[in-house]
């Protein structure tokens, strides 16, 4: 905690920092990058696992429901160029917002799945892991933003919206959460790749 505060004070992108502090930031970035790699991979697995357990129409190969907003979770920029066009700080900020909301959403999905698919233990494990990973990424992002001097986002309102009125909608909500989770994981990975090139070890 103490260390992070020091980082926050010293490590601004424009500011010249001591090499050891830079090393700290680079290490942090690399660690977070590793986490985004993990997250990206796991989120893809999770979405596949989720779909597999929801039955028709989710499990059909060409199931492509229209995009749907999930209350409390912003959608990532659609195009990679637009995302990469943002500054590091902006990207981190967006990520921080998204990952502040994702763990709760994933937790809600897991609760739904406990009822809908109580025997899908691997799905439950992956949902549990995904929520933990998202929390971990949120923690890392906060630390990174502090180290880089990026102001943190406001605390998200614990507004998860009203529970879905029926199982299908619950599944559909879950599907969108998992898909958004996958998309955000990809975006976070892109963002961290950028950062690792900027802050090499």
């Amino acid at each position, binding site marked *: 905690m103490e260390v992070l505060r020091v980082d926050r004070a010293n490590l601004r992108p424009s500011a010249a920092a001591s090499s050891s502090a830079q090393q700290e930031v680079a290490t942090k970035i690399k660690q977070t990058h590793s986490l985004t790699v993990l997250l990206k*991979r796991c989120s893809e697995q999770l979405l596949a696992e989720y779909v597999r357990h929801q039955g028709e129409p989710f499990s059909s190969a060409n199931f492509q429901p229209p995009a749907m907003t999930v209350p409390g979770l912003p959608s990532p920029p659609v195009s990679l160029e637009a995302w990469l066009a943002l500054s590091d700080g902006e990207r981190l900020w967006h990520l921080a917002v998204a990952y502040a909301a994702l763990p709760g959403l994933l937790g809600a999905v897991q609760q739904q799945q406990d009822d809908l698919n109580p025997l899908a233990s691997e799905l439950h*494990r992956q949902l549990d892991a995904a929520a933990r990973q998202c*929390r*971990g*990424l949120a*923690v*890392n992002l906060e630390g990174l933003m502090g180290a880089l001097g990026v102001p943190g986002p406001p605390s998200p309102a614990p507004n998860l919206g009203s529970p879905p009125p029926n199982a299908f909608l619950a599944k559909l909500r879950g599907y969108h959460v998992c898909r958004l989770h996958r998309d955000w994981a990809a975006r976070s990975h892109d963002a961290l790749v950028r950062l690792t090139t900027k802050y090499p070890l």
Partner: protein
Amino acid sequence: MSSGRSWVINALYILLSIFSFGVSGGLVQSCGYIIPESPVLTRGSSFTALCILNESCLDLGNIHANQIIWRIKSSVVPKEQYHVINRTVSSVTFNDTSILATPLTCNILADGQIEQNIYGIAVTVGLPPEKPENLSCIVNQMSKSKFIMTCTWNPGRDTFLATDFRLKSQWPQETLPDCMPQGVNNSCNTSNVQFFVNLEVWVEAKNALGKAESEPIDFDPVDIVKPLPPHNLIVSSEDLPTVLKLSWDNQIETFEMELKFNIRYRMSDSPDWMEVPPEDTESHRTSFTVQSLKPYTKYVFSLRCMKKDGMGFWSDWSKEKSGVTSEAKPSKGPALWRKIDMFHSPNFWAVHLIWKKLDPSEANGIILRYEVTVRARSRLSPSPATYNVNSTNLTLNLTNGTYEVTVTAHNKIGGSPPSFLLIPASNSKAPVKDLKAFPKDGKLWVEWKVPNNNVVKYVIEWCVVSDSSDCTTEWQQELGTSQGTFLKGNIKPFKCYLITVHPLYNNGQGNGQSTKAYLQQSMPAKGPTVQTKKVGKAEAVLTWKPLRVDEQNGFIRYYTILYRTIGGNETAVNVDPSKTDYTLSSLSSDTLYMVKMKAYTDEGGTSGPEFTFTTQRFGKGEIEAIVVPVCLAFLLTILLGVLFCFNKRDLIKKHIWPNVPDPSKSNIAQWSPQTPTKHNFSSKDQIYPEGSFTDVSVVEIEADDKKSFSDQDLKHFNLLKKEKSTSEGHSSGIGGSSCMSSPRQSVSDSDESETAQNTSSTVQYSTVILNGYRDQIPSVQVFSRSESTQPLLDSEEKPEDNSGGCDSATPRQQYFKQNCSQDETNTDGSHFERAKQVTPPINEEDLVGLAQLQISDHSLQQCGSGPEQNKHESALSDVLSSSTEGQILRLETMGINTATVDEIPKSYMPQTVRQGGYMPQ
């Protein structure tokens, strides 16, 4: 369960409270209480408790707080620790709580010294927790996607209280759920492991007396992982015979971590692992090609992994997998050697080529065949003969010469370099020097010095030397640079090995040098059997057979001969082992010796059987030294005797073989009147002058006898015959019977005498003798000699007095030296006195004795010549007196006496009878 039980207890307590409340002031009312209630105390601290009496109880009697007695369990707390605060409150103070125990009771001594319990509390004594130390964590991979983090710590001292340990953890901005140890207080497992987020963990220990926290540790869990080892390892051979390719699956995802590896391998028959250089396997991978392996060799592999950057822990080693490298050409030709038999003729050899199977490390595959080429070294030699052989030997019949032999081993890839051997008839090159063989490191080591630098290789042959089996040769080949080697083979202890080293040169070979060695020596199996070859008085030559090789069990260094007498000290002599006999000297003569032999190797000795012998009483030549002089002396004596006899032959003849007068020419009438005259001699002096009687009177006696005795004697003889038939024995007195039995016999007996004797006179003599003999029968008194001459009558009385045996020492008895051991000197004197008077009995006895002695011819002759003249008798007496062994002489005397008896039969016979008991001797 426990909560249910506590609920029941609570309910009971409430019920009891209500009851007691309802009956307060009644039967059940507590008279006081203690504060604090159920304290938990730190061991070693001080503690004060108060007992407060209820006012209501005070009214019941004269109760005061100073009557309070404190007890720990049943023992009373000393009054010094009490303090009465007021009438209702008493306190007790303990400076050290470690003496406290449950329950601590407050009691009161009421009237009548009856102690009543007021209240009791439970006291718990313990310690606050210590700060946990040495916290460490490890993340174990349980399966591909499951990781469990285990943290361990040192919980510190025993607190004696229920102490709660918790592993607390947090992310930088987020606290994570605690981990609660299950059944232990020094470790905790959690499956909520999130890689790539720094985690801070610490341990909190808490009990009723306090709380302690360990130092926190901060780490990314991905850096403390012990991954599962790679699995599905596959080993596959490549085209190259020196490489094997490994491939495997990693059990951790690359997006979780990248790995580095350790690969180890060994030959399947070796326990020693080799390792691929770690720098070659530092990168994440799922396969690796191991190089620099030996062809056609089975290798065993296993590997392990850890996080590529070295953080965390190595996994366990994977399961072992084996693979075999591809075949390659044999790397070396087989070791080649030969045996040459020249049994038929010197010009033809049977050459046994022998070679060794290649070591697997040299064969590089399965040897399919051997190719042997033989080329004669001569101008006319044809192209080399080639043989393909599956076995490891080949016998060739070759003519005398020099041959070059090569052998190559072939496997499916190709052939080995050729092994080369020159087969010469003779070994003319330099042999090795200073060949030695001895055990070293439990094996048999052979070493030598190089004869020169041109040696290509050495062949070492060896075999077990044994009496029971042939020397079956084994051999091995060594490089030309070596100067020693261990014998490769089953070398047995206690066996004698004959080791021969042949140096091989490019153009020939050196003479084999041999030595013998044992891998391990022992005491001989038995000792030598010793025996004597020759035994003398003071020395004995011992001989033995050398031990058989099979019995030696080592080099016989020396023999020890141990010998001793019975009860004597043992003497030991060491003997060189090359000898097979030894001479023991300075022995005692005629003594029993026990000897045995011990044969010694370096390891000890073994005794052979014990052998006993007795030394001789006389040494060599001693007997000869005694016997030869004795024999010589004896011979000399004989010779002297013979010479003497020769010189005195006339005299001897005169005495021993006197000329016996021919009875046929005798004239008894002329002789008869002379007899009395003759008997009148009373002394020797009278006899000697008549020494020539013999010649003079013989014939007359014979004639006289014949006429005068014939009739009477014959009659008398008949009488005697009758008596004889009734007598006890002695019927066959030899001399007597022969003389008397028949005239004819007498005649025949006397044939040897020079004259043919008159039969009747012979009968007369015989009769007389027989009477004498038969006189043993006392009743026979009928003898009468009609013509006996008177001179003997005088003496006839005397012999009757002299009855009995030898003890009476009559002159007659003395005369018979062989019958009575009396001095002959006496005999001499008295005999001749008697000779005049009692001659007849003497003669009778004499004859019997002679008969017993079986002196036949001469005695008979004397019998026949018995009736001699007195002159003759006196001459004989002379001889008798001078000779101690006068058997023959006495015979003569007898004969004379007999003649005398003819005239005095009656007076003379009884004496003889009385003396008959003497006769059987």
